[in-house]
């Protein structure tokens, strides 16, 4: 397996998909809300299920972008598993676990 090619391709296409979502959502928002107040919107008050809201699409772009790093760490687990490199399987699993804890669990623990 060409490990570098796999990860490099994920990074490249990940950025393209995320940017396309972010930019298309923003353009649709500007067209439909030309006089909106920028500071009224953030990740706590824009719904992730209201697909009629262009900013929902933008936020899915942000989620796609945030998902790229955990995805490449997961790919590294598979790569080191195929190489039977136990030390690096352990290291990659630990890094992924730390990331998942920080992204999904820590905000709940802090009751934000």
């Amino acid at each position, binding site marked *: 397996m060409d490990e570098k090619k796999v990860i490099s391709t994920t990074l490249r296409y990940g950025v393209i998909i995320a940017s396309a979502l972010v930019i298309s959502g923003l353009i649709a928002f500007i067209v439909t809300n030309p006089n909106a107040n920028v500071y009224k919107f953030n990740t706590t008050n824009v719904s992730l299920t209201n697909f009629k809201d262009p900013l929902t699409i933008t936020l899915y772009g942000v989620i796609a972008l945030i998902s790229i790093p955990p995805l490449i760490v997961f790919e590294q687990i598979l790569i080191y598993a195929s190489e039977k490199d136990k030390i690096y399987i352990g290291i990659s699993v630990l890094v992924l676990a730390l990331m998942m*804890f920080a992204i999904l669990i820590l905000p709940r623990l802090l009751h934000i």
Partner: protein
Amino acid sequence: MLLAFLASLLFASIIAGLLGSLTGLGGGVVLTPVLVLFLGVPIDYAVGASLISTIATSASSGSRYLKSGLAHMRIAIALEIATTSGAITGSFLEYIVEKEHLFSLLDIIFGVVLIFSVIPNFMRMGTEVPNYVEPDGLSAKLKFHGKYYDEALRREVHYHGIRYHFGLLGMYIAGLVSGLLGIGSGALKVLAMDLGMNLPFKISTATSSFMIGVTAATSSGVYWALGIINPIIVGVTIPGVFIGSNLGSRYLNRLMSRRLRQLFTLVLVALGIQLILRGLGIIG
């Protein structure tokens, strides 16, 4: 007017990406002061925009550095244990800043880190390859070795990272700063690898670029929950910083002399001082 604000936001993001690339510090660390000082964006939204834009820039440059063989995947993942742990601590500190409204303190810390980050640009880094040192036990076991062709020296360079524990310590601090300030902490990462682990400058910078996205993504969960990621602002800063960084790295970097690079670096020092003065309430 929304459109006028977004146009100036795009322009500022491109300049930040360009300056970040020309000085080697990355777009994120320049974006926050530019947004805060020139566009009046609240520092928490600026920090959130910077964190997310940093992931996009890192993914793009990381992909290029992996293909060129300069980014070392094993060194990166082994050090990411420390950067992610640091980012967890840093994002927790950012949570306290938000909770206690310590934004002036954030201004001051950001200014100090910005000034500290430019130090490598005034050192004689990047011109020499460190002497090969036989690796210590753990570093040898973790296969921190590699080789690359150095175009300036016109020879193949063999390297082996040493002192993994120094690398981990430096990376924990880099991760903490990244989580607190929403920046990539590229300069601190390079210092940890270059001075701490005896890696060649080219390998340090490439591996650092590749690692930055992992560190930044780790902090994003807390940032998201705090509501400091504004979809309109990041919708402009992601492409803006991306365009600026690419313009810098593809076309302008080769035209840069060491003196010119240091001149641009002085602009960042001025921004850092302005942030500190703002935090102290001396300027508005």
